């Protein structure tokens, strides 16, 4: 009878750490976190008392009526004209320098895409406009 050679029955553990680190790195890289980014806004409290409403002089109001993407009409006092979105920032900024009590009112049409409103809101934010009102365009105003 031949003698059988003994084979060492061991699992090599030297590379175990490498495997574990590889898994660790893999999970670290592939985990995608949900990003919470956006434009913040604080809504006004609903008022039930009509006497609370304040009268604002016309010269302190500036309206931006959003009909569609890149179709924005600016209304201020007697001026009314279409304005490219890229011009809004500079225009609002210079208007705010002239009149710091200016309230910018953003009025998107009911069928306007959400993105069109965000574009203008973004520009207003970039222009440092602090007093922004956001309300849907009423059918009588169109």
């Amino acid at each position, binding site marked *: 009878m031949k003698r059988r050679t003994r084979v060492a029955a061991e699992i090599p553990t030297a590379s175990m750490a490498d495997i574990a680190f590889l898994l660790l790195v893999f999970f670290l890289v592939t985990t995608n976190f949900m990003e*919470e980014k956006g434009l913040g806004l604080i809504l006004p409290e609903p008022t039930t008392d009509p006497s609370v409403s304040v009268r604002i002089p016309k010269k302190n109001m500036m309206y931006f009526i959003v009909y569609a993407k890149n179709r924005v009409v600016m209304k201020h006092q007697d001026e009314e004209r279409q304005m490219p979105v890229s011009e809004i920032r500079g225009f609002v900024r210079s208007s705010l320098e002239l009149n710091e009590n200016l309230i910018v009112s953003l009025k998107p049409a*009911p069928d306007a895409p959400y993105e069109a409103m*965000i574009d203008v809101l973004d520009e207003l934010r*970039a222009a440092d406009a602090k007093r922004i009102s956001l309300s849907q365009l009423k059918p009588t105003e169109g």
Partner: protein
Amino acid sequence: MGSFKRRTKVDTSIPSCSLADMAFLLLIFFMVTTAFKTEEGLKIVLPQAEMTKKIQKKQDIQHVWVNRAGAISVNDLPVSPYQMAQILNKRLQTTPAMVVGLRADSNAPYNVVNEILENCRIAGAYRVQFATQKRKQ
């Protein structure tokens, strides 16, 4: 001359047999502490904005999803604006610092967004955030 003592040799290798345990421990730690997103939401394309800011307190966010067609979803349930207001109001009782994270599709019609904002006001949720993606210059 042979009176010097021989120095004992010190083993200078770093013990590597516990390295695997450490790595697995880290792996398990990260696996346990990672908070996965709990809701599926709706399929949307977020609008882009330059002034996009990060929000700090993630746990206080209540998502409201609006897709292209104007359908609203809260906690993976299709809801009407009125039902949404009730859900928001209930959540406000437990987390007063709640922020509504409005995740609406770029092409969602504005009247749906307007209705949501009105109902947020009714529910008393005044802090709203329009989720956007950072626009690259």
